[in-house]
């Protein structure tokens, strides 16, 4: 018994390390971001408010660029609006009753309080939580394009899996085609991601726009993602693999939209049947 105590005393530092190492490894192995405790991440009350108070100052940087990008996007949307209005007029002439569509998606503004681009798995913290009806699986985008998907929410904050995280895979397609593939980050640069699983038959040219497919329900169809910059050769010959330059500037994220899909519950219920 005495020698056991002496052994423990002599090796107490090692034993402490061993216990804490096991605790750390258990934490490391909880790979699924949806299953993690909200307290172990930046969206908990303490770290959320620390980030938020600092962000109150730093969010002023880069406003000029953000403003210009917004104006550019507004111009594009105005043009699109004009085109659609013209089409609507033609359509109404053909079929008399006016079209009454209920929008499926609505957008709520949130602010980025925490963000990283340098880690192997990057996350974003937003200043809106369950009290603002943010839920897990909602899509997040900014005025340039797709940002990520909500993984966990606390009352006042939410944790978003960034597109710069290999655990996020989103369903996308080329703007001028209906075949879809999936987009995932390869960890090399915060400006690029990899588009794979597109069938070989798809017609494409470098510079083609990549948009969301709308199949996941987190994002509406046609939300901009990026442009194709090069074709990559992979062993699997049946599918095309591209490098995509992302529209979203992850190094300078300030205000984003949380995308609420008003039919998400209905779709979920149907799929679970």
């Amino acid at each position, binding site marked *: 018994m005495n020698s056991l105590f002496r052994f423990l005393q002599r090796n107490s*530092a090692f034993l402490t*390390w061993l216990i804490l190492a096991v605790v750390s*490894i*258990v934490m*490391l192995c909880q790979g699924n971001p949806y299953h993690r405790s909200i*307290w172990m991440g930046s969206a908990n009350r303490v770290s959320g408010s620390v980030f938020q108070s600092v962000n109150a100052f730093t969010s002023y940087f880069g406003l000029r660029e953000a403003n210009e990008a917004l104006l550019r996007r507004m111009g594009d949307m105005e043009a699109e609006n004009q085109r659609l209005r013209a089409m609507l007029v033609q359509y109404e002439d053909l079929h008399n009753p006016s079209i009454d569509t209920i929008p499926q998606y609505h957008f709520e503004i949130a602010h980025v309080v925490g963000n990283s681009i340098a880690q192997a798995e990057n996350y974003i913290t937003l200043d809106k939580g369950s009290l603002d009806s943010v839920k897990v699986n909602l899509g997040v985008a900014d005025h340039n394009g797709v940002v990520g998907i909500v993984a966990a929410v606390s009352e006042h904050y939410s944790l978003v899996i960034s597109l710069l995280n290999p655990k996020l895979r989103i369903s996308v397609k080329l703007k001028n085609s209906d075949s879809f593939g999936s987009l995932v980050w390869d960890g*090399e640069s915060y400006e690029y991601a990899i588009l794979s699983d597109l069938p070989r038959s798809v017609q494409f040219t470098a510079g083609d726009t990549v948009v969301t497919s709308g199949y996941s329900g987190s994002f509406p169809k046609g939300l901009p993602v990026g442009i194709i910059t090069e074709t990559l050769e992979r062993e699997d010959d049946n599918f095309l693999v591209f490098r995509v330059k992302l529209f979203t500037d992850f190094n300078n994220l300030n205000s984003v939209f949380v995308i609420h899909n008003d039919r998400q519950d209905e779709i979920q219920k149907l799929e679970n049947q």
Partner: protein
Amino acid sequence: MTYVYSFFWLIISLLLQVLVFNRLSIWGGVALVYIYVLAKFPVDMNRSLQVIVGFLTGLVVDIFCNTPGMHALAAATAMWLRIPILRMFVDAQDFNMGVPGIQRPGLAVFSKYILALFLFHILLLYLIEAFSLFQPGVLFTKITVSLILTYVISLSLEVFQRN
């Protein structure tokens, strides 16, 4: 008193780490200032306690970075091996130095000690990270950049403190 001083600087370094240095990455590598403050904890501190301090420091960084366990494991291990690493450079009779630094054991030995400790910590940290995403080129760049940044900032702080 030394302990109050050490913990005060630990908290300052943690705030700087999560609010400033984590945002200033160069090719994915960041300066890890908290390991410098950990390296300067008194050498006669209870070793189990050192391991616990390392673990908790890492855990705070992990919570802000959404990397549960990564910094905690690396920092706890670095703190456990800190004394053996220091022993490689300092003779047994000179070991009673209190807080290691530029006065004792001197700049030459201290700079070797922190280089070895930082290299160990940063290697371990990014190897753990590589389990979730392995890119040899990115891994090498991150380790190199992070080590250089951390080392230069730490040595500047050390020399600046004396003046």
